């Protein structure tokens, strides 16, 4: 398969993730949409890595995974903390810092 097919899939997945991020209210779903976007980018990285025949792209994916893992740990902890205070994980409810 040509690299462009993988890239196109990656772009579509990224866009779907973005739409989800904008439309959904549940914080955990929003979080999952971010993961979806990260994965789309990972796919593009690997496709580029193969296209250029170098390992830099794969190394980048590795680091994205590390960051995603850290993000999951902290992000979910934040969501739990928010839930404790608000009894809700709707992102639209957490707007107390608005002016």
């Amino acid at each position, binding site marked *: 398969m040509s690299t462009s097919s993988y890239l196109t899939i990656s772009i579509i997945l990224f866009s779907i993730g*973005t739409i989800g*991020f*904008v*439309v*959904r*209210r549940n914080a955990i779903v*929003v979080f999952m949409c971010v993961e979806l976007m990260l994965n789309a980018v990972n796919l593009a990285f690997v496709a580029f890595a193969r296209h250029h025949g170098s390992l830099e792209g794969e190394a980048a994916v590795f680091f994205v995974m590390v960051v995603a893992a850290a993000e999951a740990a902290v992000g979910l902890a934040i969501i739990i903390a928010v839930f404790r205070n608000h009894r809700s994980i709707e*992102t*639209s409810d*957490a*707007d*107390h*810092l*608005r*002016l």
Partner: protein
Amino acid sequence: MESMGSHREIVDASLAIIPLCPLVGAMVAYIVGQKQKDLAGWIATAASTLAFLFVVKNFFALGTNQVLLDKSFVWLSVGNFSIDFAFQFDHLTAVMCLVVTGIGSLIHLYSVGYMAHDESRPRFFAYLNLFLFSMLLLVLGANLLVLFVGWEGVGLCSYLLIGFWHKNIAFAGAGRKAFVVNRIGDAAFLLAMFLIIMNYGSLDFMALSRVMPGETSEGLATLISVLLFIGATGKSAQIPLFVWLPDAMAGPTPVSALIHAATMVTAGVYLMARLNFLFEMAPLAMLVVCMVAGLTALVAATIALVQNDIKKVLAYSTVSQLGFMFLAAGAGAYWVAIFHLVTHAFFKACLFLGSGSVIHACHHEQDMRHMGGLQRVMPFTAATYWISTLAIAGIFPFAGYFSKHHILSALEHAGAHNPQLFPWGVPLSYIATFAAILTAFYVTRSAAMTFLGSYRGHAHPHESPWQMVVPLVVLAGLALVGGVFLEGALSLQHYLGHAIPVGDVHHGESMASFSFLLNALLHSWPGFLGVGLALFLYTQAKEIPGKIARAFGPFTQVLANKYYVDELYGAIIVRPLEGMARFLWKGADQAVIDGSVNGTAAVVEISGELIRTTSTGQLRHYGFFMFVGTLFIIFFYMAL
């Protein structure tokens, strides 16, 4: 003048560890001190002792005609111009480092006892260690910029420590005064550095010592030298910038001993010794140095005659002694200046610590008129104070004799290699001799008023704890035998000869010979005169000083008011500055700047009111804007 840097062997060594010891010590002492206040002092003492041990190690590692060098890292690099964060350890540095860390350690130990009941002693010890770090940077720095960092660092620590008891407004003001006065000198120092960078493109001592002698006009050398000397007058309290040092006595006494007697104030002398090749090229600057130093030595000594505060006496004495050092340096005898620096560090630190011990015993009473007869209750303090008194008076065989004797002879022979100085050398030596007599007199006066006679105060004095007595004894021992040791055993002149020009080394007569002893005792006459006079006046004929004071009424008044220098500065500098500042405050700042700032703020506020409608607090909206923004950027770049 031969260039000293050319034939020296450069050896790599790790010197950064020396200043790092007190730096780490400062942090640890402060942090640990939050929980364990008593531990802070011991940690700081251990850190400085460790630094001392490293210095000793390097002292023994340093061979003849060697210089140890540690290029830690490239600090800044602009075009062709680059400066390393580098340390250098030659024989001059070795002597300075030994003094700084050795006396520093003793004073740390002393402070453990002195500050035992202070609430914020962790802060004190952190500052003290930080000072040691800065001072080591100053003496170890391999270029002017590192030296300058240390220079500023010691200034900062001095400010912090003078104002250590910052709840007392006057004390805090004294700290501020020291800082501001030092700024004036530092400005000149900076100008000198700019000039050096502009003309030579380097600040490295060794590079400069190679480059400068060849391609410097006398005018440029004089300009740089004078600017550097102005910097030195700030740090080393010479006329006209000496006014801060007496006020600096507001700080705790160990601080006065360490910073304002033994180490920091001698930085200017060190600077001159370090840049000797530069001053050598500027005979006129040397003359200026000598004149200012001679004047300072005399003026400060006369003021010290009439002070009643024991620490003020010592403070003016320090100013005067620094004048002696600059006299030696100005006469081209740098090693003599360093010699006096070392011996002065011994006996003046001992005097200050002794005064601290007395003050401690008398419950923070500093006025000598309320002391007296303390010899009976404080035998150790009294004995060490007397030894140091005799040392500063310049009586053989105490340490002060040797250095002072060398200064006087250096002045007499100054014309030999500096023709500019020739007509002035002998008069200057007379002035110095007179100042030496005064020195002996006022120090003996302070000792007599404190320790002899009967007690005139109301407290219940007692001998100080061992942490304070041990440093006193050690320093008194050094004041006693230090001169003989440096002159004879170490032969300081020969030793420093590896690093700075010292003239002809005299290996001459043995110190044990009878003629030498007789000669030495004869040359101690100013000391004997001053001490004897003071003892007579303040123990036998107690009514005479009062009569003298009344007889010279106006002159005594002038002396007691320190020649009205502070008032003079107030009238010609401070008040106009205040007026200008007030105009700038009311006219420029409030009207123009505040107006424009408030106007800007108003614009921001209005636009903020408008834009804040986009801040909905909804994560989705922010995400959406981000996405659209990214799209916009992509389209924009693709369109290009």
